[in-house]
C-alpha cells in the first residue's frame, strides 16, 4: 500500500468532514433549504471567484494587501528581533521596557491608526505602521523568550570552549533563539494579516479588506464569500508556509510553537 493511500485511510474523516459540508451546502442551497441570499452555493461562489480573477479585480485588491503585509512584516521583524535580542541579553533593559510592553500589547492594533496617522501623515504609511504594531510586540516578545530559554549549561560549555563576545552571539545565542524567533515571525505574520484586513476596512479603497467591506455595502454576497475564501487561503499559506519553512531550516528544533 502506497504511503499516500495510507494517509488517506487514516485521515478519511478529516477529508470527508469538509467535503460533506460543502456538498450538503450545495444541495441545501440548490433546493432552497438554505436561503441563497445568505448562503450562496459553493459552486456560485467559485464562479464569482473565477470572475474576480479574470477581470483583474482580485489582483487589484490582493496586491495592495500583500504589499502592506510585506512592508509591515519587514518593519515588525527587523525592529522586533532587534529589540527582542537586546531585551533578552540585557536584564536592565528588559525590566524597564517590560511594563511599557505589557500596557501597550493588549490594545487592539487598529486603535493605533489614529495615533499613527498623527505622526505619519501619508495614508499608506500609516496603514503599514499600524499593521506592524502588534506584530512587533509579538516578535520582540518571543525573541526575548528565545534568548532566555537557551540552556545555560550550553552557554557555559560554549564559553568554556572559547566562544566569547560576538562569537558567542553568532554561534550560540542567535541559533539558540532561532526556533522561538521563527515562531514569533509566524505569529507576527498571521497578526499582520488580521490587522491589515481590519485597517483596510476602515480606511482603504483598495485591498482585500476593502473589497470585502465594499461587497458587503452593495450586498454582493457571492463576492463577499469569494473574497473571504481568498483571505482564508492567504492566512493558511502564510501560517503553514512559514511552518514548513521552519521545518526545513531548523531541523534540530522540536516543535516549540503553540498554534
Amino acid at each position: 500500500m502506497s504511503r499516500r493511500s495510507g494517509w488517506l485511510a487514516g485521515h478519511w474523516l478529516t477529508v470527508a468532514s469538509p467535503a460533506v459540508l460543502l456538498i450538503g451546502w450545495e444541495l441545501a442551497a440548490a433546493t432552497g433549504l438554505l436561503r441563497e441570499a445568505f448562503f450562496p452555493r459553493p459552486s456560485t461562489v467559485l464562479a464569482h471567484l473565477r470572475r474576480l480573477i479574470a477581470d483583474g479585480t482580485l489582483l487589484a485588491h490582493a496586491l495592495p494587501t500583500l504589499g502592506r503585509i510585506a512592508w509591515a512584516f519587514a518593519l515588525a521583524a527587523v525592529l522586533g528581533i532587534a529589540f527582542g535580542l537586546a531585551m533578552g541579553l540585557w536584564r536592565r533593559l528588559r525590566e524597564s521596557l517590560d511594563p511599557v510592553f505589557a500596557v501597550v500589547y493588549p490594545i487592539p492594533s487598529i486603535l493605533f491608526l489614529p495615533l499613527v496617522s498623527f505622526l505619519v501623515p501619508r495614508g499608506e504609511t500609516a496603514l503599514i505602521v499600524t499593521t506592524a504594531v502588534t506584530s512587533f510586540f509579538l516578535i520582540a516578545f518571543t525573541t526575548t523568550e528565545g534568548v532566555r530559554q537557551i540552556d545555560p549549561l550550553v552557554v557555559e560549555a560554549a564559553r568554556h570552549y572559547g566562544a566569547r563576545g560576538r562569537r558567542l552571539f553568532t554561534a550560540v545565542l542567535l541559533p539558540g533563539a532561532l526556533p522561538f524567533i521563527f515562531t514569533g515571525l509566524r505569529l507576527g505574520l498571521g497578526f499582520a494579516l488580521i490587522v491589515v484586513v481590519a485597517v483596510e476596512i476602515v480606511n482603504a479603497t483598495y485591498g482585500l479588506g476593502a473589497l470585502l467591506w465594499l461587497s458587503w455595502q452593495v450586498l454582493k454576497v457571492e463576492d463577499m464569500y469569494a473574497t473571504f475564501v481568498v483571505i482564508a487561503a492567504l492566512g493558511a499559506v502564510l501560517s503553514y508556509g512559514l511552518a514548513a519553512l521552519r521545518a526545513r531550516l531548523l531541523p534540530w528544533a522540536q516543535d516549540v510553537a503553540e498554534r
Partner: protein
Amino acid sequence: MKVEVDDVTVAFESHGRSVVALDRISLRVVAGEFVCLVGPSGSGKSTLLRVVAGLLRQTSGAVRIQAERPGTPATAMVFQEHALLPWRTVLANVAFGLENRGVARAQREARAREMLALVGLTRFARHYPHQLSGGMKQRVGIARALANDPEVLLMDEPFAALDAQTRTIMQEELLRIWATLGKTVIYVTHSLEEALLLGDRVVLMTARPGRVSQVFPVELGRPRGLEIRASQAYGVLLEKIWSQLREEVVRAMGDDRGA
C-alpha cells in the same frame, strides 16, 4: 606537577547568608594521572572542577596548571548533561573549540574526525545531537574535549545521566581512550565504585563546606578492566573508603534535612 590547587576557597552569598562551598582546598595532580574526586552532594566537587576550568572565580587561593604545549588550552571539560549545541552537527560540535581558536576549517575537521573515530562515532558526523542516544551524545562531548588537546581533561560526572548498562560500557570506553592518550584527568563522581574502577587516586571530600577529607591511592594495576570489580583488593579498598565516605554522606543528608 601538572595541576596545583593551592588553598582555594570559594564563598558566595545565597539568600542573604554567606555560603562556603570550598574551604581551603589544596590538591596536587601529577602529569598523566587519573584523579577522582568523590564526595556527597554539596561537597563542592563540581565547584572545584569549575574553578580549575576557569569557569568560576575562586574567592581566594590559586590554581596553577603546567603548560607543556603552548597554544593548547589548559583545560577542556566534559559536562554532565553533554551540553552540546543542538543546532550544530556532531562534527561541528566536536570542532567547536578549535573553531573558536581560529583553526582553519580543513585542519579542524580532520582533527574532529580523528576524535570521532577514537570514540567510535565516525558514521554520525553529519547527525544532529537530538538524533543520538544519551551515551552517544556523551561520547561526542568527550570527543569535543579531546579535540582541543588540553593539558588537563576535566570530567564532571559525565556518565551520571546514563542508564547503568550504558554507563558500564562508557567506563570501559573511557579506560581504553585514556590508555591510548595518556592525559591528565580530574574526574568528579558520586560513585565510589566508578572512582575505583577508573582512578589512580581517590580524593574524598567532606560535606559542605567542602574540604579534602582524605586521599587514597588506588593500587589495582594498569591496564584495568571491568573484571577488577571482582578482585579482592578492590573489595577491600571499597569497604575502607566507603566507611569514611558514608559518614560524610550522612552528614550532608542531615544538613539537608535541617536546612
